[in-house]
């Protein structure tokens, strides 16, 4: 997880995910250094938090309310009704460009996240409302979209049409498109955008939730096409990464550049929702669209 994060230091943050102790098997527990497992430093207020407690609090800093990145499985627990999730048949990435090291990257990510690829997707109930629920996991190669994520999302929207149910997608992918799959990952932007288009034409509701960070090709396709776009507080949202913007323009970035608050102020999203109120808010929105 950390290795992936270090290799792509697009953002100034230091630590990424909460060590989700409940998901750790022995192997990963051994790999991790002890302080990592026990304590975690808040990226926002620098408070040192007891990681188990923070994990219990849905990954929200008890001192300042900062929302840590959480894994797809953790988010599933927070959002979906218990035992309601039925995942789609799993798909696994191949290496279409023979990009060096890609297979290992995939295998490592699969081992750390327990996911097949960067998305967890299937049918679920949210407060009793049946829907397609997709969650992108940043820990899987930056939550980037390759062929698998693109196909699963597309199947998600197609399934939604078939069953006439809403789609809720949580996006959080720093890199956007998955570079190692080259042109194939770029084309997933078109594929998913079209899937959303067809879904909307069927008169169905798509709620897009932007979590930290939603950037690049993910933001410039399905993630910004929701009928309703929600975001978690302070989530980084944008097309070009802040470092690229700074390097290109040689300008100092404004305070809070590309945060959810900034996007809200500029009219790009509907609402910022605290993680504690996310399930309730989505359920409410779903109930308005019965």
């Amino acid at each position: 997880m950390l290795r992936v994060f270090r290799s792509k230091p697009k953002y100034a943050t230091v630590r990424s995910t909460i060590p989700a102790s409940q998901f750790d098997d022995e192997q990963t527990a051994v790999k991790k250094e002890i302080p990592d497992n026990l304590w975690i430093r808040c990226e926002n207020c620098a408070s040192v938090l007891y990681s188990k407690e923070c994990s219990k609090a849905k990954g929200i800093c008890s001192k300042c309310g900062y929302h840590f990145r959480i894994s797809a499985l953790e988010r599933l627990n927070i959002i979906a009704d218990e035992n309601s999730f039925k995942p789609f048949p799993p798909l696994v990435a191949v290496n279409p460009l023979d990009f060096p090291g890609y297979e290992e990257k995939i295998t490592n990510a699969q081992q750390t996240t327990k996911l097949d690829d960067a998305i967890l997707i299937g049918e679920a109930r949210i407060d009793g409302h049946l829907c397609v629920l997709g969650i992108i996991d940043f820990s899987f190669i930056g939550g980037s979209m390759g062929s698998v994520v693109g196909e699963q999302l597309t199947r998600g929207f197609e399934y939604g049409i078939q069953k006439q149910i809403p789609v809720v997608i949580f996006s959080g992918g720093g890199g956007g498109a998955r570079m190692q799959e080259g042109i194939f990952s770029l084309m997933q932007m078109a594929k998913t955008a079209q899937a959303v288009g067809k879904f909307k034409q069927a008169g169905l509701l798509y709620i897009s939730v932007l979590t930290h960070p939603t950037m690049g090709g993910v933001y410039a396709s399905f993630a910004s096409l929701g009928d309703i776009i929600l975001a978690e507080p302070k989530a980084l949202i944008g097309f070009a990464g802040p470092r690229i913007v700074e390097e290109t323009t040689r300008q100092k970035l404004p305070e809070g550049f590309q945060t959810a608050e900034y996007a809200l102020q500029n009219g790009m999203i509907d609402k910022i929702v605290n993680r504690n109120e996310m399930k309730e808010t989505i359920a409410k929105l779903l109930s308005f669209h019965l």
Partner: protein
Amino acid sequence: MSTIFEWEQPLVELEEKIQELRSFITEQGIDFSNELSELEKRAEKLRTEIYERLTPWQKVRMARHPERPTTLDYLELVFDDFIELHGDRTYADDQAIVGGIAGFLGEPVTVIGVQKGRDTKENIARNFGLPHPEGYRKALRLMKQAEKFGRPIITLIDVVGAYPGIEAEQRGQGLVIAECIEQMSFLRTPIVCIITGEGGSGGALAIGVGDRILMLEHAWYSVISPEMCANILWKDSSRAAEAANLLKIMPTDLLKFGIIDDVITEPIGGAHRDHQATARQLKAFIQRSLSELKKLPLDQVVDNRLQRFRNIGKFTEKVYQEQVVEKLTDSDQMLPEQNENGDGE
């Protein structure tokens, strides 16, 4: 030619020698025709060797040649009576994207293209061909207008990427690219997209969803520019040439992958050596594409377009799901149940 690449140097020297010999023959009246034809043969061989074996990075540099024809050049050479239409009706007129109505073999079409500048002054006005959200909004507006009046759309793509600027982000660069991609997919009019130079990422795809996708011989199309890829992989953008090899960005690669439909051959030495000849080629390909598309009912055109993108992607269905589920169950997790009816197809 003002810009000569290092790999062209031997050829240029040889061409100069031939030129010298020619003037020597004319001035002195001595017959060196054997030597001359020998040299010309060598030059011909060298030309083929050099331009048929360009590396991906050399192609990128060819695509960026300052004298390469731009959208406005093609508008002049391929189309008639171009009337430029400006503005996104919301914020501004982005000069990095030009668009409007033109005649093509006697029929009105809408042409939209990214415009780079020839010199510094023009490049500043055109923002080096890096569009802002208002550029894409203008493109979308003109494409919808084309749909309304049943005009085919031709897009000419030559862009490293959408502009990564503060204001561009503020005005929704990502969002507008998504909207372009989505809405272009459903437009009820034939669309021909041509990557004439650079096809960089979402900024290219935003006007790149079409029924025929063509590339000039020395153009590239990729999810990320080689420089940025090198920057991510090795924190060193000077290793772009290596990254270009990895990314498979050449027209031949993309044709093999089924991403593009055809490669438009350029004059030997590149499009910049002969704008007229390049334009003739482009014209022939557009003509053929449009006449093919016009034979199909519009519903079919749109369906084919959607199906084309729907099918792009390489992956395998997984077989070892059970093990993973068990593992998670053991660690007492709330659990994805086995899927019963998850497949949307």
